[in-house]
């Protein structure tokens, strides 16, 4: 038997493959494609304390080997999430990780506090890339002081594993990671999207109504891998790698760089079976290479 399992704080995952927030809906959207319980777990679309309608269209555009999005975190709000989305999610037997965001630190606290009452949540992931209205719209993870403060506040209201999801749009992602670790985060996930833009030269308008948006997909994989490598070298808590992963080979790069788990994002759109294929591909690779425990490869990149 090949052991694909991994550990994120107190949370044991049967395999390291998770789905990235905002690219897998509330999992129900993918239930027709395969048995969701084969994944390590799912991370939900971001939930906020109040419902949000999302941004005006156009919200997406294709770029070379990537895409831009400015979806705007549309969601039904915590209460309706509990009433409408949670029943399906709560029946999954693998890890269900709830991704939470807010406009203020207090929004994060209130959402997590309310959700913490639910049975069966495996962990919380805090989306720190969203704009913090208290700090002039800068993201919660663009400043170590703010990241530390929010993490500490949320830490007080839940004992569940807490994952902070970091933006790559900073000078030093490891400084932010360290601040989260110091404040009690159990893991970090990285990366969220890169700030990007595209213009339609015919209409002369930005291709997204929000002007700039978030770049994701294979195009950003090298950036994501560098950030994950950097974080894994300085943090004691586990790092969850995200960014342009399409295949088991891509996932292995992140594991070798030090990731304890992975999230599949944009790839789900082109290939709804992508996340399962990564699980199967990792299994197949271990079998072929006679690797008994996948996590033995974690951080095993040869630097000399």
């Amino acid at each position, binding site marked *: 038997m090949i052991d694909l399992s991994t550990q994120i704080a107190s949370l044991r995952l049967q395999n390291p493959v998770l789905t990235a927030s905002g690219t897998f809906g509330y999992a129900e959207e*993918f239930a027709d494609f395969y048995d969701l319980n084969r994944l390590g777990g799912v991370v939900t679309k971001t939930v906020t304390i109040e419902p949000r309608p999302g941004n005006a269209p156009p*919200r997406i555009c294709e770029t070379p080997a990537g895409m831009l999005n400015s979806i705007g975190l549309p969601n039904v709000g915590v209460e309706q999430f509990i009433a409408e989305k949670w029943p399906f999610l709560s029946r999954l037997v693998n890890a269900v990780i709830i991704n939470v965001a807010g406009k203020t630190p207090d929004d994060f606290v209130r959402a997590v506090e309310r959700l913490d009452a639910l049975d069966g949540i495996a962990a919380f992931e805090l989306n720190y890339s969203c704009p913090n209205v208290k700090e002039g719209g800068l993201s919660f993870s663009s400043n170590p002081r703010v990241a530390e403060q929010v993490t500490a506040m949320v830490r007080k209201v839940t004992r569940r594993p807490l994952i902070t999801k970091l933006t790559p749009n900073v000078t030093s992602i490891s400084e932010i990671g360290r601040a989260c670790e110091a404040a009690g985060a159990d893991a970090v996930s990285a990366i969220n999207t890169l700030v990007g833009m595209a213009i339609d030269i015919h209409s002369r308008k930005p291709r997204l109504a929000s002007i700039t948006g978030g770049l994701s*997909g294979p195009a950003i994989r090298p950036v994501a891998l560098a950030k994950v490598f950097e974080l894994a070298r300085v943090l004691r808590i586990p790092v969850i790698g995200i960014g342009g992963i399409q295949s088991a080979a891509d996932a292995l790069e992140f594991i070798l760089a030090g990731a304890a788990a992975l999230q599949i994002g944009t790839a789900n759109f082109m290939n*709804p079976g992508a996340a399962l294929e990564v699980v199967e591909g990792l299994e197949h690779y271990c079998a072929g290479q006679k690797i008994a425990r996948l996590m033995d490869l974690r951080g095993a990149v040869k630097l000399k």
Partner: protein
Amino acid sequence: MAADTFRLSFAAPAWAQTARAGQFVNIQMPQHGDLLWRRPFSVHDADSAHGTLDILFAAVGRGSRALSRCKPGDALDVLGLLGNSFTEPAEEEEVILVAGGLGVAPFMLLLRQLRHWPGKKTVFLGFRSSRQVCCAETLVQRGARIVLSSDDGSAGVRGLVTTALEDYLISRDARQKVLLYVCGPTPMLRSVRAVALQYHIPAQVTVENRMACGFGACVGCPVELAQPRPDGQKYLLACKDGPVFPLEEIVFND
């Protein structure tokens, strides 16, 4: 076929039985390279006897041009059947199909579905010029009357398809119950919407938003509601709640 217009037929026996007009498939482009997304195309026709599905498309960009070079026997990666479909007419006496350019695509299957429906079927077909005209003959074979128009007058009436439509609506008996089906470029949809509202004619539209996924996962394809819902909902999803919508309920901003 017309200039730069292609019909592609592929084997899909199960879908050929169940496909409903308005639904679409999302196809990975051959040699997709750095094209990340699949490309969505309406089901143009479904032949349950032969087990095939057809799409009708214009080669407008890198993806569709690559698709147009497919040869018989090539494998395609198709995701389907996606989206909702047109509601068939009930007690109406006439259906009017309004197609701008390749907007005609879903109507071939719609007319197949309506072959036993007894009412009058009129298709307003607008093209840029005679070089683009397609499908007219087959639509006639499927029991429709065609009103052809073109921007440059090289085929049918000169002018916009909406002008032809409005002329027709003005001259008809206003007591007759009519149902509109509309598909085409956004400016056309906007005009037809105005006309439909003015004449109080119920209309169903298929929209063609850009799509990253096609099945509700990316939330990238919103269609704006004319009236936000009481719970604050401002948008529906083209791929999941649509692509067919009641024309009066949505708006086309930009």
